[in-house]
């Protein structure tokens, strides 16, 4: 059964006006969540509502607190301050097994002494379900992840991608309300990553539950998210749909981290302009900078030109290959970079 995935999301600004926005049902709500290790603050007073049945990505550089946040939702990390609600039930003090969440670990953590089928059936065994019954159910989930043919194999005999599928099946058999994924695609090679990515999205849609997926790859986050949460230094920099975050970055950090943007100090303020919306040509209304070409990168369908304007303003312009090769550039060339005012997005602070 497919859900309509065009879910409306709330940006930070509307979060501040709690109560005046229609509250859609949420699967997860974080309220002033904080995690401290002694004097160090890993997660700093974050608040977030993740709507039901959505694919949510926590995106950010290493050490930004995304994994800690995930583990707090899972119940594997104690909360210092704040609350976590899952389907409007406060689970802040609930143990991990009672939260209705299930976690997929970065290392998959498949039990090495059990084969794939027994790994998946593990939680059923804990509940005392007898062997035939639990093996049958486990098989169904292995079919969901297309691993039914390798049910008898031990984890040591499976490839990385196969282990991940089994781990996924194992997490889903507990019928969680929320699936938490800790950098699930990081250990895979790039080709496999793209394939598994669409698998994850397919399964999330089919099952109709919420996935919270931690990643440091903006490409992954853009491809998967209904809700994208960009974090840095323990705080949420921006939360919104993928398009919102990409087209309207809230601040310079988000603009730089999400990629594909130039952050330009222009007219006394910081603005973001997408690299593919910049042109090597004179602008018509004063929105241009003189820059020196520092490097040219061929990337297949597009060519990326790295430039520097003035002393410290890096710029990047991405042109379709045909446009570039019509008038190619050399390192050291001084050119004019320009953009249109409607492509300019003012950045906060």
């Amino acid at each position: 059964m497919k859900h309509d995935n065009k879910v409306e999301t709330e940006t930070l600004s509307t979060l501040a006006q709690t109560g005046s926005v229609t509250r859609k049902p949420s699967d997860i709500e974080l309220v002033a969540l904080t995690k401290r290790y002694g004097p160090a603050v890993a997660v700093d007073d974050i608040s977030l509502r993740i709507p039901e049945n959505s694919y949510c990505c926590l995106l950010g550089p290493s050490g930004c607190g995304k994994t800690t946040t995930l583990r707090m939702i899972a119940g594997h990390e104690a909360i210092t301050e704040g609350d976590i609600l899952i389907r409007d039930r406060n689970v802040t003090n609930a143990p991990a097994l009672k939260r209705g969440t299930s976690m997929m670990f970065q290392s998959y953590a498949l039990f090495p002494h059990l084969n794939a089928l027994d790994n998946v059936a593990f939680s059923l065994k804990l509940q005392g379900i007898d062997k035939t019954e639990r093996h049958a159910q486990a098989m169904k989930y292995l079919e969901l992840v297309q691993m039914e043919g390798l049910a008898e194999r031990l984890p040591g005999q499976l490839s990385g991608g196969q282990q991940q599928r089994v781990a996924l099946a194992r997490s889903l058999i507990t019928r969680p309300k929320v699936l938490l994924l800790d950098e699930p695609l990081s250990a895979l090679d790039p080709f496999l990553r793209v394939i598994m990515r669409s698998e994850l999205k397919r399964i999330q849609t089919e099952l109709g539950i919420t996935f919270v997926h931690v990643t440091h790859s903006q490409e992954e986050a853009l491809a998967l998210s209904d809700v994208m949460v960009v974090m840095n230094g323990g705080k949420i920099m921006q939360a919104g749909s993928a398009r919102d975050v990409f087209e309207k970055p809230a601040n310079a950090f988000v603009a730089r981290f999400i990629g594909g943007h130039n952050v330009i100090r222009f007219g006394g303020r910081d603005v973001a302009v997408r690299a593919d919306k910049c042109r090597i040509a004179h602008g018509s209304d004063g929105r241009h900078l003189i820059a020196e070409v520092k490097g040219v990168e061929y990337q297949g369908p597009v060519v990326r030109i790295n430039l520097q304007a003035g002393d410290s303003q890096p710029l990047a312009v991405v042109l379709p290959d045909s446009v570039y090769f019509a008038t190619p550039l050399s390192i050291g060339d001084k050119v004019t970079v320009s953009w249109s005012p409607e492509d300019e997005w003012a950045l906060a602070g």
Partner: protein
Amino acid sequence: MRDTGQRRPRSFYFLLALFVVYMAFLYGPMLCVFILSFQGPTGGMSFPMVGVSLHWFEVLFGGAGGQGVGDMHNSFVRSMRMAAIVAALTMMIAVSAGMAYRRKFPGSDFVFYASIASIVMPGIFVGFGIALAFNLLGLEVQWFSSGIGAQLTWSLPFGLLIMFIILGRFNPSYEEAATDLGATSWQRFREVILPIILPGVIGIFMAGFTSSYEESARTSLNVGTGNTMPMEITGLLTSATSPVLFAVGTVTTLFSFALVIATLLITIGIAKRRQMRLSAH
């Protein structure tokens, strides 16, 4: 790891020679014992061999009309009995204690340093202390109570250290995954932790067994009446200076070998059944 295919540096040959000499140093005496245990009936404690015979084995086992040497049979049984009990106790107590150390708890340092102290203290010292304690309490020193207790002071710290090594390499995600899937702490232990650390646990059992079997300093004062094997053999060293000692040596060595090989086979069997890569990720 190494660059293969390269010519060996000169140092390699020097080190290899040293290693060979070391092997000769280690095995020379053992080989002498082995060879000389087949000494002829009129031969002495040194070479040359005066004939080759099983005479001394017969003397040892009490054949050929003799009564055997010393009280070998009984002391052997005593040693085995003690070793089995000590090994089982060590395994259970050390595994339990090792599991405790996965968290920080008040008193963890105390128990750790007490364990180190127990190993560091000379054996007769500990043995003396225990015997003294029993004496003062008016209790008799017996193999079952003070004897086993004394041997535990030696085997338990080693068991704990082995647990540290095992659990240090244990991926914590396994446990978190188990919790996530609904396991209580007992289920976590029985279904996940124990199967994975089983080879190590067997190692603790065997370490406890062999250390008990060999131990003499702590045990001798605490075993009460009746000798253990090491004590019996020590007694023989002074009383019986004949190649029968070599026969004893050969037999006990073969027995130890058998034990160790049995353990290896069991451990390999377990690992094979799981086909676990030795470096779990």
